[in-house]
């Protein structure tokens, strides 16, 4: 369960306050939205990097073997 830390200066007490059902729903929706965005970024980065490395390495290796 998600929570926040609350320090009450009047009493000097520190408590861990669990999210309400409504807050948890908002939190879950926000996390889901972030996770939905993350795979797209990973794919974009991977697609860009792999061909560039392959292109450079492929012609070099046969030359060294010869």
């Amino acid at each position, binding site marked *: 369960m*998600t*929570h*926040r*830390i*609350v*320090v*009450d*200066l*009047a*009493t*000097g007490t*520190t408590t*861990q306050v669990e999210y309400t059902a409504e807050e948890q729903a908002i*939190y879950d929706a*926000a*996390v889901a939205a*972030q996770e939905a965005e993350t795979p797209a970024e990973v794919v974009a980065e991977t697609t860009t990097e792999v061909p560039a490395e392959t292109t450079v390495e492929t012609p070099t290796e046969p030359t060294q073997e010869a």
Partner: protein
Amino acid sequence: MSVTINASTSSGLVQSADTSGTVEIQSNGTTKFTVASTGAYGQITSGTAVASTSGTSIDFTSIPSWVKRITVIFNGVSTNGSSNILLQIGSGSIQTTGYAGCSISSSTASAVAFANGTSGFNYGSNGGASSVIGGQAIFSTLGSNIWSQSGSLGDSGNTRLYLNGGSVTLSGALDRVRITTVNGTDTFDAGSINILYEG
């Protein structure tokens, strides 16, 4: 005429308030120092240091209405994500609109200024989960529930400095401060935070 009162060696000096609950020390007819049931005016009071090792936000509540300045202190604070540190204040509840300001993230290579947004005072851009943040932010009121804030946070994990300045108007007397992140979902995982307050 001056009067000296010696403390008892067994119980110390005790000055009790009348039924108002307020003790005042005056000089030349003017009150210079007041001790009320909610705290002492004219001196710096430390809150309770809390470990910022869990949770999505850390709130300091029940801040007395006579407070004029608040210092939020960060020591080795980190989160599990890359969302910027966000500071918010409130009266009765945390205010999430109406903030105006600007922030700068400075590294050894460059400095980037970016819009603060309106949901809080935005300290970034965060270097990611490797951030280890120390420093302070100071809130001061100029009256009428208008609060200005400025601060500098150093990120030793990413060799960055985060600066922020801005202001916001609350609907009533400030009674709380929240330390969270912009996305509201990153979780604190290291360090400690405290506040100082004074009137």
